[in-house]
């Protein structure tokens, strides 16, 4: 007989909710078994149901049993009980809370003032004010830009256009509240409020609950953070290295035909009176591509460039014939640095401090980079070479010079572009990835899994999606 909460009569409604909640957790990959469910039910019996924090605490202690699980738990808990509340509200036909975030009020909102106001609110805190700010922001941007229909994208758009970042932004005037960077957790809280507000509006508009979507990789955590995330990248990169090292063996079994080594076969046939009894075949050597990597290290990809440098670092260990370049406005070869230095931290510091790639503005100038790269390397490009570009293809209004890029691509055998932005942002704003994608194969690459896809393609050419 399993243990049930002491007052099972009244908790029947909650039990079914708990069951549904656990099912959602499982769908997201949290290993919450029956034992966990029973514990959760027992724990819930001991806390006040009306106390949201206590219920949350009791459930998280019994259902989520690792830091990763906890992260997923937070998101699912938030989503599940938000939806439950909205559902109940809809059923009762009540006005959904938070209606009219300021219809005519929004028109009066001065965008600049709003940015400042929100940044200040984020610095100082107070949950209530955050919620108000989120509503104002949603109202203002709902009018100027319209929604993309995807809540996650809208949240990020709003954050971007408010210019909110956790890193310090030295190019802003010092009295600007955003100049020092917004505290990371406050920013996350704000994003959550905005998300909630957007969902609320959708529900209000359609008078029904949208279907629950599984969590995206975006919510599971991005490789944008600090030490912990960096460690994660290194772990994946180490796996990739192993995969690359064994990829040669994999090919062996797959290729059916191979060339016969006539010389060795004839020599062996001498032992059998000139009859070639034993056939000797040419050894199959895995193709080691010769690689040129260009890596954008400008500020627009700050968070991604650490990721990219880690990738570069790993690639260097795996491919012997590889030359690396970093660029912002100019291009600079860092192959030697990578060969000399084994410590990733030292490399990234050396690159950011004295690679000499930034000129005046610190914005990427793709046209100039292509030109310099061509001049530098033109004679060495050949059809077996692979060119990989790591960058967001944001030109900052400067000429893209896709004709030059086309020349590079034409000389090289294969050309890849890894873009650290989610596909939804491509060609949005000053991103010109489309004009380049004509000449190369583009990959969306901001999680380790996506990186894995790319490495598969690189090491195993037949798995490539048809380019052009």
């Amino acid at each position, binding site marked *: 007989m399993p243990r049930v909460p002491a007052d099972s009569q009244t908790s029947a409604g909650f039990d079914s909710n708990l069951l549904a909640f656990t099912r959602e957790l499982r769908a997201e990959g949290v290993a919450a*078994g029956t*034992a*966990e469910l029973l514990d959760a039910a027992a724990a819930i019996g001991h*806390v006040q149901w009306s106390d949201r924090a206590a219920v949350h605490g009791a459930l998280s*202690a019994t259902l989520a049993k*690792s830091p990763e699980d906890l992260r997923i738990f937070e998101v699912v808990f938030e989503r599940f009980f938000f939806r439950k509340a909205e559902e109940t509200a809809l059923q009762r036909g009540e006005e959904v809370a938070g209606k009219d975030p300021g219809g005519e009020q929004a028109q009066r909102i001065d965008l600049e003032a709003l940015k400042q106001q929100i940044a200040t609110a984020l610095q100082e805190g107070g949950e209530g004010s955050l919620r108000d700010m989120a509503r104002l922001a949603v109202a203002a941007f709902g009018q100027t830009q319209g929604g993309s229909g995807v809540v996650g994208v809208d949240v990020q758009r709003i954050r971007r256009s408010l210019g909110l970042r956790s890193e310090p932004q030295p190019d802003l005037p010092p009295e600007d509240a955003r100049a020092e960077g917004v505290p990371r957790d406050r920013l996350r809280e704000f994003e959550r409020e905005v998300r909630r507000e957007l969902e609320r509006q959708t529900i209000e508009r359609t008078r029904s609950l949208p279907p629950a979507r599984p969590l995206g990789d975006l919510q599971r955590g991005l490789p944008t953070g*600090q*030490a912990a995330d960096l460690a994660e990248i290194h772990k994946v990169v180490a796996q990739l290295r192993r995969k690359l090292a064994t990829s040669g063996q994999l090919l062996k079994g797959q290729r059916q035909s191979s060339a016969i080594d006539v010389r060795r076969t004839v020599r062996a046939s001498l032992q059998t009176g000139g009859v070639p009894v034993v056939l000797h075949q040419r050894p199959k050597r895995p193709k080691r591509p010769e690689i040129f990597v260009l890596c954008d290290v400008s500020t627009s990809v700050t968070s991604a460039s650490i990721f990219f440098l880690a990738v570069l670092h790993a690639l260097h260990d795996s491919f012997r014939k590889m030359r690396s370049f970093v660029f912002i406005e100019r291009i600079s070869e860092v192959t030697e640095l990578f060969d000399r230095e084994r410590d990733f931290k030292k490399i990234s510091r050396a690159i950011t401090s004295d690679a000499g790639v930034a000129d005046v503005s610190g914005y990427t100038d793709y046209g100039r980079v292509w030109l310099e790269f061509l001049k530098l390397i033109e004679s060495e490009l050949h059809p077996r070479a692979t060119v990989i570009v790591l960058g967001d293809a944001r030109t900052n209004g400067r000429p893209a010079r896709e004709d030059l890029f086309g020349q590079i691509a034409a000389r090289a055998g294969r050309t890849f572009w890894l873009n650290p932005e989610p596909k939804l942002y491509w060609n949005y704003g000053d991103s010109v990835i489309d004009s380049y994608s004509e000449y190369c194969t583009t990959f969306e690459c901001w999680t380790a899994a996506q990186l894995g896809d790319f490495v598969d393609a690189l090491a195993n050419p037949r798995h490539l999606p048809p380019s052009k």
Partner: protein
Amino acid sequence: MSNTPKTAEELASRLTADGYLADTQTALVAWLAIKLGKPVLVEGPAGVGKTELAKSLSRVLDRDLIRLQCYEGLDEAKALYEWNYRKQLLRIQAESADSGWDKVQDDIFGEEFLLERPLLEAITSEEPVVLLVDEIDKTDQEFEAMLLELLSDFQVSIPELGTMTSRSHPVVLLTSNNSRELTEALKRRCLYLWIDYPEAEHELAIIRLKTPDLPAAVASRLIELVAEIRGLDLKKPPSIAESIDWARALLLLGADDIDAKVFRETMSVIVKHRSDLDTVAERVGVKLDGGDAASAS
């Protein structure tokens, strides 16, 4: 048990009175552990007060603390029980003449000849205790498996004696620094508590509690700096234990502000790796005012 707190809040306030500032989640999970009689698996970075929680709990609940420090190679002879061979030998020699073999055999495998190790001691104790299994991630998986019976049913099976069930219900805390993934079976039997670096206000409160004589301005400056240092990519970021040590060091030095000089002198209290020291001096130390930092470093 009159000593059991009625609510999680009561437990929290009692812990505070004992000098341990628990956040709501910590207090709630500890309280649930007492209520549900389940072990708690406490994880988090080193030095955030996992072990301290167990100590404080034992004081608050007025129970004995039995501590098992885990390490690689720890086996059941040291953790659970062992037969007292010497005593058994003596027993056999003393009575070998006049008693039959069967009687002696029954006799020497009795409780009298059992050496209780921490785990057995915890469950056979007449009074309920707090059992702390510290750094469980340091042991081997086999040891973890051995713990399972104890954790789920609070009993230990001894082949020669039978099953020893617990006389009282201990509160069990297992701590882990997450240096290896624990098995699902173990996790399933436990409540889970993740203690992270505390938020600034909470940490300030802890510092104020531990070093009430430290000027408030210095304390808040200290918290700020520690938070900044944690943001750097260090081998071992400073945790609460280091913050408290630092606060005590500053108090001893009688510092009324943290300037570059004081920071340089006391930095080694919070940062404990050679390479980390360089990083911190480079990134944080130079930002502080107070003169000769630039020329000295």
